[in-house]
């Protein structure tokens, strides 16, 4: 019975406290550090990257030029919640989720995966924004 109670408590804790998950920037920082010449992430560079088109799209095409505001999917028109954690605290909290969307969206925008530098710059930029 105690085992069941402990398991239940663990399940409730895992379901109710996603904020305890690892920081998505941690693994990205490890990867960036492995690249010779890495000199840290830059919010300013992230801001530029966010608005720079690869082909016909940039990040801002769907996520709005102002990440504190809701965006809109370029093809379907479905609203996309704001990317800036200051106004949407659930953003950038789940490493697997962050990796999944970088993988997909970088291919859509740049036809390749983003580098650790690019990902770290964008996260740093989004986290630097106030409300």
């Amino acid at each position, binding site marked *: 019975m105690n085992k069941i109670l402990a398991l239940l408590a663990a*399940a409730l804790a895992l379901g109710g406290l996603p904020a305890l998950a690892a920081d998505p920037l941690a693994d990205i920082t490890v990867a960036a550090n492995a690249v010779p010449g890495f000199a840290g992430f830059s919010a300013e560079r992230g801001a530029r990257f966010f608005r720079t088109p690869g082909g016909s799209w940039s990040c801002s095409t769907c996520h709005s030029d102002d990440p504190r505001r809701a965006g809109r999917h370029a093809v379907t028109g479905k609203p996309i919640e704001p990317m800036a954690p200051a106004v949407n605290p659930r953003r950038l909290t789940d490493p697997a989720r962050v990796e999944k969307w970088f993988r997909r969206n970088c291919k*859509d925008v740049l036809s390749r995966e983003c580098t650790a530098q690019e990902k770290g710059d964008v996260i740093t930029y989004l986290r630097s924004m106030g409300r």
Partner: protein
Amino acid sequence: MPASRSHERAKARPAWIPGLLIAAALAIPAAPAAVLADGGRRSPDDPAWREECGSCHVAYPPRLLPAQSWRRIMATLDRHFDADASLEPGRARGIEAFLVANARQASSESALRITGTGWFRREHDEVAGLFSSAAVGNAANCGACHPQAEQGRFNEHEIRLPGGNKR
């Protein structure tokens, strides 16, 4: 004897603990097992499908396409209508199983786009001109006329055409 002591302890367990466990389990937030569909039928739900398929567009209910179409869509997620929608393989398999198990029963149909199916064209032949209007934008915006689309409901009696006209 250990066995009998353990038995005594079990008997001494307060009767309200199982009830508490059930109450706690019921309190864990979970997606509804099913949502109402057309004509009051139950439309199956699946949390992974809802999250993954509902990020960029309405989570299109499985009954809108036949199994063959869903299999082809799930096999080409890395180039899903010009976007990369690739998933971790295990998660993709689970969603495919849900889609196929609840797919439309139509052996002759194999369209990848819902708008390319015969039933969709027949159902929308009177209103196809509205798709590109400013109020709708494109045919993927189900919610423009089907306010309950996110809940999987496309009942004819719930249609609201842009401008407030009931159909």
